């Protein structure tokens, strides 16, 4: 069985945002609310040094699909809602999830952004306990009465909520997750199963992301890691700290080379 991971070439990455928004169109994630970002693909920006020698780095982020996933250990249900698939993907079973938030608390890359001001992103987001997701497309208010449409109306006319919802199926999760559930990047397993790359990888205009089997020495990801042994890092938290691969929770998303070409 494979052990899926991703290598992101920072020199190729333009920090353009296409992966972040592309993911939202593929996975129909909600708008941010209550300290939850719902950006399965996001960015962690870092600036080091002072003008004019300041160096800027943009790390595109996603779930690290750690080999030692604390989100799984923290999941209180049995069997756990958060679990490791045979292919290495840290999957999440929506049905078993009770929305307790223990996974978010345990994950070093996740935060409630309202509580953790230093956080730049959160891998795990928690759906509201009270309201259905995509509140904007459930809101019947018209900006100008009788003249402009409303979120609820345009969703009804289009036929889905959200109207641009990409329909896909997976045994563990729905294309829009229900309220009271945790959710996060699952490497687009519904696409991977049919031989496609995760959507963030598909839409990256600089082809900075390479997805593949870390256990296969001949895979593109394994080769990139071998070739870039000196520069490869993983993220150590969701505030821009980096570490050597294999440390901490053993993330399986790796960053090679440098975002800036400056020495």
């Amino acid at each position, binding site marked *: 069985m494979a052990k899926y991971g991703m290598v992101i070439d920072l020199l190729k990455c333009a920090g353009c945002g*296409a992966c972040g928004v592309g993911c939202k*169109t593929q996975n129909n994630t909600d708008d941010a609310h209550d300290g939850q970002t719902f950006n399965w693909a996001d960015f962690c920006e870092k*600036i080091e040094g002072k003008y004019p020698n*300041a160096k800027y780095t943009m790390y595109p982020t996603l779930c690290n699909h750690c080999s030692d996933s604390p989100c799984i250990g923290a999941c*209180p249900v049995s069997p756990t809602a958060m679990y490791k698939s045979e292919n290495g993907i840290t999957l999440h079973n929506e049905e078993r999830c009770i929305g307790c938030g223990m996974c978010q608390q345990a994950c070093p890359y996740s935060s409630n952004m309202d509580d953790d001001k230093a956080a730049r992103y959160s891998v795990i987001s928690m759906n509201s306990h009270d309201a259905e997701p995509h509140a904007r497309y459930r809101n019947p208010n018209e900006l100008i009465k*009788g003249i402009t449409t409303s979120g609820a*109306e345009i969703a009804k006319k289009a036929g889905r909520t959200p109207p641009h919802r*990409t329909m896909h199926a997976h045994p563990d999760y729905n294309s829009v997750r229900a309220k009271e559930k945790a959710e996060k990047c699952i490497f687009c397993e519904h696409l991977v199963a049919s031989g496609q790359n995760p959507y963030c990888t598909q839409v990256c205009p600089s082809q900075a992301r390479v997805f593949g089997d870390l256990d296969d020495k001949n895979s593109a990801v394994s080769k990139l890691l071998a070739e870039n042994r000196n520069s490869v890092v993983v993220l150590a938290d969701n505030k821009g700290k980096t570490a050597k691969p294999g440390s901490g929770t053993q993330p399986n998303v790796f960053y090679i080379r440098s975002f800036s070409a400056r020495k």
Partner: protein
Amino acid sequence: MKIKRRDFLKVSAAAGAVAVIGGPSLNAFAQTTAPKKKAMGEAAGEWIPSTCQGCTTWCPIEIFVQEGRAVKVRGNQLSKANGGYVCVRGHLLLQQTYDPDRIKTPMKRTNPQKGRGIDPKFVPISWDEAVDTIADKLIELRRNNETHKYLLMRGRYSDHNTILYDNLTKMLGSPNNISHSSICAEVEKMGRFFTEGFWGYSDYDLDKMKYLITWACDPLSSNRQIPNAVTKFQRLLSEGTVVAIDPRMSNTAAKAHEWMPIKPATDGALGVAMAHVILTEGLWNKEFVGDFKDGKNKFRKGREVKEEDFNEKHSYGLVKWWNLELKDKDAAWAAKETGLDRNQIERVARGFAKAAPNCAIWFGPNMQPRGTYSALAMHALNGLVGATDNEGGLVTGMSAPSSSYPKFDAYQDDLAKAGAKNKKIDQRGYKTFPNLASGRPGSGVSANNVANAILAEDPYDIKVAIGYFVNYNFSTMETGRWDKAMAKVPFFVHVVPMVSEMTQFADIVLPSALHHTEDWAIVRSKANLYGHISIQQPVVERMFDVRGAETEFVWLLAEKLRDKGFPNVYDWLHNEYKDPETGKKPTDGLEFAIYATKIRSQKAWDPAENKDYKGDKPSGWEDFRKKGVVNSPRFEFRKKWGTPEEGNFPTATKKFEFYSETLKKALTEHAEKHNTTVDDILTVTNYEARGEKAFVPHYETQLRHGSRTEYPFDLVDMKSRLNREGRSANLTWYHAFKKCDPGDVNFDDVVQINPADAQKLGIKDGDMVKVTSVVGSLTVRARLWEGIRPGTAAKCYGQGHWAYGSVGTKDYAKFEPRGANFNEIMVDDYDRLSGSSARNGGFTGVKITKV
């Protein structure tokens, strides 16, 4: 009963174990079996081609449609301009299509009072009533023989703008088709036109380039070929050299090998100093420019050179340029002017020239007073190293085939012909507005001056105006003038998908179809050495009764005008816009839109017309619709060079002009028209050069509004890579990824200040600050950021809407803006040689105080 998440966390944290679990809401725990095997995969759908116009790239795209809904976007897989990728803007268009605040019906205002903050009290009306009212107003203009008092304002457009913007305006008898181009990037074109006769935007051979200087632009986020730039930069970053010249750390500057944080508006100084270095060190391209007859370099600092000593090849006037401007201006001098490091200036000039001709200066809009001369200095360097029109350099680029629209002349009556001959409303060609587009005095537009002209009724007043996909009350500098001007226009029609600031002044509002998902049109552009013609077609069913602005609206108006006794417009459309396949005449607006689309693209898809074409050749209309794009053949280099004996550049001398005879001719023509001298024209248009210097690329110092003592900061206007022009602020994804603009933050609008400056002012990161210019003040959050030159303050365009949707506006009912639109405090000024509005170069001084 439910256990709230926070309660649960408290309990479990206290117990430190999962053993506390239990209770009524936890029945999920009962499930112990493995998940049921359900199907896995994406539901079926279809990729349908269209074109994104979220910026000026005009990318061929495909939209994934499931159940009749637009759900995903990618670059057209056949496109050679973008390699099948879109930038972030492409993905954003889904939220634009499904914007909860879109207009679903025509409406009219019931409150006759007009002004910022005044509720128009719109009420819904039918298309019939709306267009009937518009037709009445136009007939009235005809009756009173004042058809020239009709004004059409164009914002974003397709090729079909020929119908509404150009032809219809003339058919109605007005000269006033006003485009927004001069608030966009027209000065950039001055740089190439008055050196090599090309009025247009550049393309680049990024695959073969070794050294790239991006100057006053940020190709990774804007400037006309974003996906291509994002894709191709990596090779340059790995194997070549990238230098970014910009007072702020743009996306390109963040990644570049060298960042040159130049003092705003000193670009001309850097340009001429780089030329000085290249010449004194003998690094110019001998093949293109030529050499000294005796082979010995006589370009030495401070020394004049004799013209007869130099044998010039494909260029003209190099020695004149040296003697008039370059000879004393070395890197040490430029370092003082620009605030840059002398060694860096020399290093970059050398590196650039040594990579010649596989190098380019990719220069930006230069929209600043006196900007023409900085654009000229930038492009003159491309000439000096022989990079223009050359492999690995910058080129004019390709275009794709398109057919002409049917002529309207036979249907234009005498009244209309006479009316259309009036002076244009924007005062182009006045003594202070030379507007030398394509070298023709008085031909370029001055869109932002229209507000002044309307208010002064000079040359006359405007009685009926139509604007489509345009929002001058947000997008222009010193915006408040437009609030006054539009309040003065007695009848204004806004044809738009969304209510915006300009809509607040409308008497009639018509909901237009969105170009990328609902309308029929043709768009052409270029990138990556290929030109393309690309389709826009409905990919989803229209959810409301919206119509295509450039076609269907014109049709409806034509019908109404016919019914009121002016059949010419209808006859023109009905008789001339026949389906090229069947010869059938259109019977309604939608048919007209489709036939117009087929007519415009016929050369690209009709086998009878494309059989000898060297680019893509679809087998017919249906095949073109399915593919969506036709790519041209690849650009061929050096066609413009000609021979040293006979140049092929379309300039006055047929050569690449370092001394612009072309500019001299245009300026002289303008001066003669006003019975004066070129020096007098330069005086009244606020340039510093006098005499011969006006015809060579040279350094003009900053023209600045506000004294340095009172307004110490140079305001730097920046553009967001998430801006679908000014239309992204109501998209939640825009706010969720705003930090992708380096220095900016999510869910807020900020002014970027260097921490060293902030410390002196007692400003901390996140403080609210008041930013004041000579024309006004705005309050906005401060972001302390090491990526900005001290003494400058950068503010991104795009937010600060006071009437644009429920997200884009903080409180629409109160017209309370979300963020701050710095256009409001930027001064109404121009690069008058081009007629372009100033926006760049820190020409507006500001002071910043803690609130």
